[in-house]
């Protein structure tokens, strides 16, 4: 594993990485204080995401509780996952919330309830990309850099849990158009969120 991206990422975020790892080690060791801290740090954001997706306060509470308990029980598996604790935890919240709304739509195939780690977190380290700017302001700007239809497609997918086919039906365009909007939308956001110093570490392509 001598991928330059990984080396670059290692230098860029080593302090944060170490802190996050230590945090996860405490959680994995059954340290309730670490869980308390995790909730203090990300509980409100987790709830906001769960509420955004489920549109229901009590469902959002259940999702957040499930996600934090999932993190609590599976912190030992974090060591192999890339990304910060924040991304890891919030991805679990997202995953659980989408499960919850899909459960209301019996036509959709449900993920195995035992699977708590979202796919994107089980990607090997070699799939690392440059770290993007993720502050609220940068993201708001990035969202204005893509077209309305691209933004709509991404929102229906990510916050609505709709499949590509369902998005096509909902928006009345062919499946291929939906795929194109999702791809171009994500690429457009990425371009707007690239680090201002020009992307240390490169894209690896």
């Amino acid at each position, binding site marked *: 594993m001598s991928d330059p991206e990984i080396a670059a990422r290692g230098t860029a975020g080593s302090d944060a990485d170490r802190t996050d790892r230590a945090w996860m080690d405490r959680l994995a060791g*059954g340290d309730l204080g670490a869980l308390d801290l995790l909730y203090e740090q990300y509980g409100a954001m987790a*709830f906001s995401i769960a509420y955004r997706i489920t549109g229901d306060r009590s469902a959002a509470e259940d999702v957040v509780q499930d996600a*934090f308990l999932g993190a609590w029980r599976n912190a030992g598996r974090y060591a192999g996952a890339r990304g910060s604790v924040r991304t890891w935890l919030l991805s679990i919240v997202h995953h659980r919330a989408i499960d919850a709304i899909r459960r209301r739509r019996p036509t959709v195939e449900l993920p195995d309830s035992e699977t708590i780690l979202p796919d994107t977190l089980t*990607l090997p380290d070699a799939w690392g*990309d440059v770290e993007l700017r993720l502050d609220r302001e940068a*993201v708001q700007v*990035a969202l204005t850099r893509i077209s309305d239809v691209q933004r709509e497609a991404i929102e229906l997918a990510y916050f609505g849990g709709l499949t590509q086919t369902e998005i096509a039906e909902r928006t009345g365009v062919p499946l291929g158009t939906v795929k194109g909007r*999702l*791809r171009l939308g994500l690429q457009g956001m990425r371009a707007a969120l690239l680090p201002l110093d020009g992307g240390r570490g490169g894209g690896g392509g």
Partner: protein
Amino acid sequence: MAEHTFAGMTCSEVADQAPAFVLGILTPAESDAVRRHLGECPELHAEMAELNSVVPALFAAVEPVAPPASLKDRIMAAASADLAARREAAAPAPAAQPSPPAAPPRAAQAQRRSWDFGAVFRRPVWAALAAVALVAAVALGAWNVQLRDQVAGLEAYRSGVVRVLDEAAKPGAQLAVLSDPSGAPGPTGLAAVAADGSVAIVMRNLPATTGTQVYEAWLIGADQVPVAIGDFTVGGSGSASFLTSHAPLGEGVVVALTLEPQKGATKPTAPIRALGQARSQAG
């Protein structure tokens, strides 16, 4: 890029599904195939990483909404119960396994202890009960599993009661005490029916569900027609805490539970296991 096939997908097909994969909207089978392809394929699939790195940004676009203060209590209580169960499961039966697995640092232990028996348990009597039960669980080997379930059940029940009472304290809420309609000793619990239609139920002494069985909760209004409001399963602890909602059915609504052979019952097919009439707490 060269075209490879792994997990039944070519590189082009994987690339085609990349946006849907990182957004988590593929079916489990599809995303599993993509993941397995990525795990085996020698190609870099760099676009996958590029698209994936954008996804965390979507979190930052979400409008902040404050969670209720009780949510943290519930999470800490559940984690505490989980920890108690875990520690009990890891504890050696008497004389069976003399050296326990690597002990965590003392500081961490002290912190845990204060959480387990202090802050998490609001009332000293619960802490004492749980402490006694834990000591007994370690000492009594064969009873371990049963006691662990009881401790976990006790804690889950306690946090569920707190939640129901919180709901019941809201303006316009009604509270029902649920018990076996025949008066026999059996499942007992509480249900709060809030003015906005949310219903919180906490139960204990419920027989565990097996297979496809679920407990279905019903609201029975003035028209005497039971309306299914949601289902839940029960493990060995016999305790369950459940939150659902339904359009308000007015004052004096009856809350009932049946044990149904499977999800989706639209009218009760089994005898009522627990029943109670909700009453307004005002005045």
